[in-house]
C-alpha cells in the first residue's frame, strides 16, 4: 500500500504550487516598490507593508503545508462546520467589528492584527456547496436542489451585504459557473449576460420609454418570425414582461436604492461623468500609471506615479498599477497570463477528479480566482466600476493571502488524493 505521506508528496500538483509561489513573490516585490519607504528600505523590514507581506507569505506557506498534511476526509467532514464558523464570524463582525472605510468588515484580534471574515467565507461557501451538490441524487436542475444551492450562496452574500461590502458580495455571484458546470441551464448564463447588458444600457440611455418601446419591437419581430411556434411565442411574451419589469427595477434600483458614491462609480465606468478630482480620481490616476508604462515599463522602483503616491491604495486594490507602470505591457500580460494559466490549470485539475466533491470545489476555486482577477484588473484599467476586491496573492493583506492559500491548498490536497478513492 502506498504510504499516504509519500503519495501526497508526489501527487501534489507542483505546477500550481509554482504558480502560487510566483504570484506571491511578484506581489511581495511590487508592494515593496509601491509603498517603498526610504527609511526602511529592506524588503523584509517589519514595520512596512512589504515586510509584513513577507511574514504573511511565509506563514501562508506554512499553513499550506499544514493543510497538505491533513486528512482529506477531515476536510470534507468539516465542511458544514467551517461554514458555520464563518457565518458566525460574519454575524460577529456586524455586531463587534471595526469600521474601516465605511465597511464593518474587520474583527480586531489581539496583537494588532485584523481578520476579515468575508475572505474566509468564500472558502467555506465553496466547500459546503461542493459538499451539498456532490450528495447522491442532488441534481441542480431540480428546483429544490437549485434553491438550496442558491441559498448556500446567497446567505453569506446577504450577511456581507449588510456590512456593507459590495465587492465581496459580488464575488459570490461567480459561483454560477459552478452551478452551470453541474448542469444548470446555460440559459442562466445567457440570462445573466443579458441582464448585465440591460442594466448597463438602462443606466446609460436614461430613457425608459425608449427602452421599453425598443424591447417591445424586438419581441414583436421575433414573434412575427416564429408565430407558428406557440410555445416560443408565449415564452417570448413572458420573457418580455420579465425584461420590462427588470428594466423598471433597474431604474428603481439605480435611482432610489444605490448610494450616491456607488452611483458615481458606475457613472464613471459607463462614461456618464468624468469626475477626475473626486471619485474618478483613483481610476484616472490608475489608468495614467498603467498607461505610462508603455511596452517595457519604467523599471523596478522607477515608476513615477507609484513613487510619488499618485495612485491611492497602491499596495492593495491598485497594486496592478505598479505592475503596469513598472513592467509595462510585457509585465502586465505576463501576470495576466499567469492567472489565466492558473485558472485553466485548476479547471484541468477539476476535470481529472473522480470525486464530484473535489470537482465542484475546484470549479469554485477557479471561479473565485477568475472573478477577483477580472474585476480587480478591470477596475484599474477603467472598464469595471471601482469595487474594492484584492488581486489574489499579489495584493497586500493577511486575510486575503491566507484565504487564497487555503482555497488553493485544500484543492491541492483533494487533488493529491484523487486516486485515493481507489485506495480508501
Amino acid at each position, binding site marked *: 500500500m502506498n504510504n499516504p505521506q509519500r503519495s501526497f508528496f508526489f501527487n501534489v500538483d507542483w505546477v500550481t504550487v509554482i504558480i502560487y509561489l510566483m504570484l506571491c513573490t511578484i506581489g511581495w516585490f511590487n508592494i515593496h516598490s509601491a509603498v517603498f519607504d526610504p527609511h526602511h528600505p529592506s524588503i523584509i523590514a517589519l514595520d512596512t507593508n512589504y515586510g509584513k507581506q513577507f511574514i504573511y507569505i511565509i506563514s501562508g506557506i506554512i499553513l499550506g503545508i499544514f493543510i497538505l498534511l491533513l486528512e482529506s476526509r477531515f476536510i470534507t467532514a468539516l465542511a458544514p462546520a467551517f461554514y458555520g464558523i464563518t457565518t458566525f464570524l460574519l454575524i460577529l463582525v456586524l455586531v463587534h467589528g471595526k469600521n474601516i472605510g465605511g465597511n464593518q468588515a474587520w474583527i480586531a484580534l489581539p496583537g494588532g492584527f485584523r481578520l476579515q471574515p468575508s475572505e474566509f467565507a468564500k472558502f467555506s461557501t465553496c466547500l459546503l456547496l461542493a459538499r451539498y451538490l456532490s450528495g447522491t441524487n442532488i441534481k441542480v436542475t431540480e428546483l429544490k436542489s437549485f434553491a438550496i444551492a442558491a441559498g448556500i450562496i446567497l446567505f453569506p452574500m446577504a450577511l456581507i451585504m449588510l456590512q456593507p461590502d459590495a465587492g465581496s458580495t459580488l464575488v459570490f455571484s461567480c459561483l454560477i459557473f459552478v452551478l452551470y458546470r453541474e448542469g444548470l441551464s446555460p440559459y442562466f448564463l445567457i440570462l445573466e449576460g443579458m441582464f448585465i447588458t440591460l442594466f448597463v444600457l438602462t443606466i446609460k440611455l436614461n430613457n425608459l420609454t425608449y427602452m421599453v418601446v425598443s424591447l417591445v419591437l424586438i419581441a414583436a419581430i421575433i414573434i412575427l418570425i416564429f408565430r407558428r411556434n406557440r410555445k416560443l411565442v408565449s415564452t417570448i411574451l413572458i420573457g418580455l414582461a420579465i425584461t420590462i419589469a427588470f428594466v423598471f427595477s433597474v431604474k428603481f434600483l439605480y435611482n432610489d436604492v444605490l448610494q450616491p458614491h456607488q452611483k458615481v462609480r458606475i457613472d464613471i465606468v459607463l462614461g456618464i461623468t468624468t469626475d477626475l478630482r473626486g471619485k474618478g480620481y483613483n481610476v484616472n490616476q490608475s489608468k495614467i500609471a498603467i*498607461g*505610462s508604462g508603455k511596452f517595457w515599463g519604467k523599471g523596478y522602483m522607477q515608476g513615477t506615479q507609484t513613487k510619488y*503616491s499618485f495612485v491611492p491604495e497602491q499596495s492593495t486594490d491598485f497594486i496592478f498599477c505598479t505592475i503596469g507602470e513598472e513592467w509595462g505591457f510585457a509585465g*502586465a500580460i505576463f501576470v495576466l497570463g499567469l492567472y489565466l494559466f492558473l485558472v485553466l490549470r485548476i479547471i484541468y485539475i477539476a476535470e481529472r477528479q473522480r470525486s*464530484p466533491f473535489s470537482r465542484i470545489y475546484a470549479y469554485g476555486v477557479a471561479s473565485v480566482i477568475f472573478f477577483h482577477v477580472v474585476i480587480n484588473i478591470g477596475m484599474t484599467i477603467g472598464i469595471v466600476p471601482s469595487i474594492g476586491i484584492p488581486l489574489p496573492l499579489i495584493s497586500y493583506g493577511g486575510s486575503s493571502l491566507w484565504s487564497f492559500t487555503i482555497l488553493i491548498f485544500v484543492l491541492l490536497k483533494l487533488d493529491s488524493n484523487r486516486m485515493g478513492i481507489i485506495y480508501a
Partner: protein
Amino acid sequence: MNSFFVRRYVIAGIFISIIVILAAKLFYIQVIDKEYSIYATKNVLRSIKIYPARGPIYDRNNNVLVQNEAFYDINVTPKEVKPFDTLEFCKLLGIDKPEFDKRFEKAIKYSPNLSSPFEKQLTAQTYASISERLSEFTGFSAVTRYMRTYPDSVAAQFLGYISEVNDKEIKRSGGRYQPGDYIGETGVEKAYEDVLRGQVGVENMVYNSHGKAMGHYANGVYDTAARAGDRLTSSLDIRIQKLGEQLMQNKVGSIIAIEPSTGEILCFVSSPTYDPNLMVGRERGNNAAKMYKNPYTPFLIRPIQAYYPPGSSFKPLNALIALQEGIITPQTSYYCTGAYKGGLPRCDEPHGESDLARGIAVSCNTYFASVFEKLLNINGPRNTDSTFVQWRKNVSKFSFGERLGIDLPNEGKGFMPTADFYNKRFGVNHWRSSSILSLAIGQGELLATPLQMANIECTIANHGFYYRPHLIKAIGDKQITKAEYTQRNYVGIDPQYFEPVIDGMQEVVESGTAASSKIPGIIMCGKTGTAQNSHGKNHSIFVAFAPRDHPRIAIAVVVENAGQGAWYAAPIASYIVEKYLTDTIKRPMDEFNRIKDANLMPDPSFYYSQIRKDALRDSLKKLKADSLHKKGPVKSVVIKKKNDNKVAYLTSTLKRKENE
C-alpha cells in the same frame, strides 16, 4: 455527473475571452494611446524657473551706473510649519502678532501645501540677522531676488527701467518671455535687453501627490543653469554726468556730449530727471504715478525726443553749405544795420560790416539772411523750390530731419520741411526765399533734437564727417567694434571750408556771444542759440566742441526758458567741458553755484495743458503738435508725436502701471 463534461470548454472559453478583452484594453492604453505617459509626466514634473542676475551697466571707466542688489523674500509652506516661538519670530521680522496671523491665514488660503511669500523684499542686512535663525522655523524659507540699484542715482532716462513683462510683449516674443520675466522698457535697459537679460535657468523637479518637491528629475540632466546677464560698459562718463545733472537741477532741458573721434556718448542729461531707484521695488507704481502727474514730464528723454528750433546754432551749417556751393567765401561780408532789409529778421544791435568769422562770432542775423537768400536764388527765383530741394538734401546729410540711429529706443527724427510742405502752405511756385527766411537763422519750421545739434559739432570737429552716435563700449569683456560705428558718414562739405567756420566759432567763445563762458587754457569753439518761445522766455541753446586741436568732446546744451544762449546754456556747457578735459573746475565757484542753484522752471500751465491734451486724445499715434505757426519764428518746446515717438504713450503707460 460527467455528462456536463463538455461545459468545461465553455467555461474555459468564457474565461479566456474575458481575459483577452482585458489584455486588449491594456494594449490600448499602454501601447497605442500615448496620452497616458504625458499625463503621468504632467502629474509629476514641474519646471521651475531660476531667474538670473541681470547684467550690470558701467560707465567708460568701469564705475557702476546700475547693478543688482539681492533682496530676500521669506516664503512659508503652512503645512510644513511646526510649532515655534511666534513672538520671537515676529520680533525678528519686525511685525506684530496680529500681522503675523493675518499673513499666515493668507498663506493657508492660497494653499497649505505650496510655498507663498510671507515677507517680501528684505534688504540684505535685515535678512542677515534672520538667516542664521531661519532654520529654527520649519516651513519658512528664503528666496533670493535681484533688483536694480543705482548707487549714484544718475542717468535715469539714459539707463531706463525694467518691469514685468506684459501680455502683449509675451505674445510678441513668441515664447521667449514668460509671465514673471522682466524686460527693459526704456533706455539702455531696453536697447540692450538681449545682452542684459541673461538666460533663465530651468530646474525640473518631481513632485508627489501632495505637491511636495521630491528632487530633480533625472538627476538634473535636463536642467539648465541660469546664466547671468552680460556686463555692459557704456561710453558715459559718470563725472560729467553727475556734474551735468547737478547743473541742470530746477531747469528743463538737456545736455548731450559726444566724443567726435568715435561717436561715443559721454554725457546724457535730461532734465527734470528723477532718482532711478524710485522705479524699483514695491513703491514703483506709486512713484511712477507721481512722476506721470509731474507737468514737466520727467520720463521724456529730452536729448533724443524733445524738439527745438536750433536757432543760431544752425548758422554754421548754413555757412558751410554756402561755402561748399561757392556762394560765399570766408571774406564775403555784409553790412548789418540791425534789421535785414529793414524788416525781419532783426539783430540785437547793428553789427556793421562783418565777414564770415565775425558774422558767426556775433551771430549776425543780417549776414545769414543775406547768405541764405543768395543760396536759394542760385537758379533764379522761379526755381526756388528745386533749389530748396537741393538745400534740403545738403542739410539732411547732417542728419537733420532724419534719425541718427543711436542705440537707444524711440529716437526722434526732428523735422525738416519739404518743398511739398511749402507748396501746400503757400501754393505751388508761390513762395520764395523771403517766405522761408527764418530757416536762415535756424527758426521757422525747422526742428531738431539736442542729439542732432551735438552731432553737427562732431561733424565740424572732424572737418566733414561724423560717426554714428552710440553708447556702448563693451559687452562683457569684448570691445564693440560694429562696422556701423566705425564708418565715417561724410556730409559732402570739403574739409578746407571748415577752418574759417571754426575760426568764427572760436571767436564766439573768445570774444563773441559766449565770451563769459571762456575756459582759461582751453580753446573751445561754439555757437550760441536762442530759440524763441511763444509761451514764455526763450530757450537758451549752446553747441560747442573742444579743444580746437584734436577735439575730445562735442556738446549741445538746451535750457528751456532761460533766455539767451549765453546766459545759461553756454556756462553749463563750459563747466562740463572743463571738467571733462581737466577733471576740475578752476573758475570761481560763486558763478558756478549761481548757475547751479538757478531755478528756471517754467510756468507749469503750459505743460499742464500739454499733458491734458495728451490724456484726452484717444489715439496716441495721431497726436499732432500744435507748433506750426503760419509765419515767422516759432515757438516753444514742441513735443511732436510722430510714428514711434512714444512720449505720451510712455506717460500713459506709466499711468496704467500705477496699478502694479
